[in-house]
């Protein structure tokens, strides 16, 4: 199989990747549009939203950063919240690192690294044989563009649409988060417990003034606490499914 793959030119691999990335790119537009509505609520311009999404390329990470920005919290809080919410990319990048053929120029590691997201990683890690960076760029290029465009579109729509509609659209991102976490929570009891604890503890923090902290700090503290406790009590067995969330 590795022999066959070597016959692909960079252009062919790129086109192939582009084609495989189209469904991802369309999904990204929708999620990023919902993020754009929230960016509008905190006063970002379409250009700023475009740049922000292009640079960050992460739904949970970007939402966490938006919470930090809305609270005008310190930069260091944003850095830590990003490390926590994006920590899983460390795992994906190390896995992807094994997919590069020994002869691949270093520059491609810098290029592919920019585009490690849940969906693109799944595409790359399932590529047969060594990963062709050009295949990855094909999927990544259009997806990243649609991701950035979605945020700008969400901000523009938020500025034009009536307030009532914008308010309704503000929950779209939460709806997406729910759609991501609930099905695995149903299948896997440990994940179910993690999600339930997340809801409960997050709510308790808001309820009791003594436990009150900024949204960013709350995300950091509770994520580390819950994921840490879950790994101690019930270490995840990896055989079945490797990457879904």
């Amino acid at each position, binding site marked *: 199989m590795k022999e066959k793959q070597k016959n692909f030119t960079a252009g062919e691999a790129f086109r192939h990747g582009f084609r495989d990335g189209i469904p991802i790119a369309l999904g990204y537009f929708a999620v990023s549009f919902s993020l754009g509505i929230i960016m509008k609520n905190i006063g970002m311009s379409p250009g700023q939203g475009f740049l922000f999404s292009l640079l960050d390329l992460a739904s949970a990470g970007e939402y966490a950063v938006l919470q930090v920005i809305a609270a005008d919290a310190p930069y260091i809080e944003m850095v830590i919240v*990003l490390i926590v919410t994006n920590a899983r990319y460390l795992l994906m990048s*190390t896995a992807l690192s094994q997919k590069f053929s020994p002869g691949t120029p270093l520059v491609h590691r810098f290029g592919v690294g920019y585009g490690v997201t849940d969906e693109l990683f799944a595409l790359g890690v399932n590529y047969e044989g060594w990963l062709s960076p050009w295949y990855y760029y094909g999927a990544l290029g259009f997806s990243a563009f649609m991701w950035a465009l979605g945020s700008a579109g969400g901000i523009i729509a938020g500025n034009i649409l009536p307030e009532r509609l914008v308010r309704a659209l503000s929950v*779209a991102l939460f709806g997406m988060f729910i759609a991501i976490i609930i099905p695995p929570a149903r299948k896997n009891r440990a994940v179910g417990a993690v999600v339930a604890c997340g809801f409960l503890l997050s709510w308790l923090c808001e309820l009791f003034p003594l436990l009150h902290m900024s949204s960013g700090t709350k995300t950091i503290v509770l994520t580390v606490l819950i994921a840490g406790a879950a790994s101690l009590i019930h270490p995840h067995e990896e055989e079945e499914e490797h990457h879904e969330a």
Partner: protein
Amino acid sequence: MKHSLILYILLSGLVSYLIRVLPLTLIRKPIRSKFIRSFLYYVPYATLAVMTFPAIITSTASPVSGMLALIAGILLAWNGKSLPFVASVCCIAVLISELIMGL
């Protein structure tokens, strides 16, 4: 606002990039620790749950409309409905309930 929006944006981009690129360039080794792998597996679920609730009920005009969206979303996702469908119904739940409540 004490902090600069553009600095937030550039710094967040830099951090996001480093998290992804360092394992591909400097580290290059698979993470073998079972605890760390397990921790990283649970992190997205914990983070997304913490960020969703109670934020979903404070982002709407009334906690009631947010709560309806949350319940509808959980029920639909539990029954395996697709992500776009779940998200759309959440929005519609807020829109209709706020219209009814006259908000």
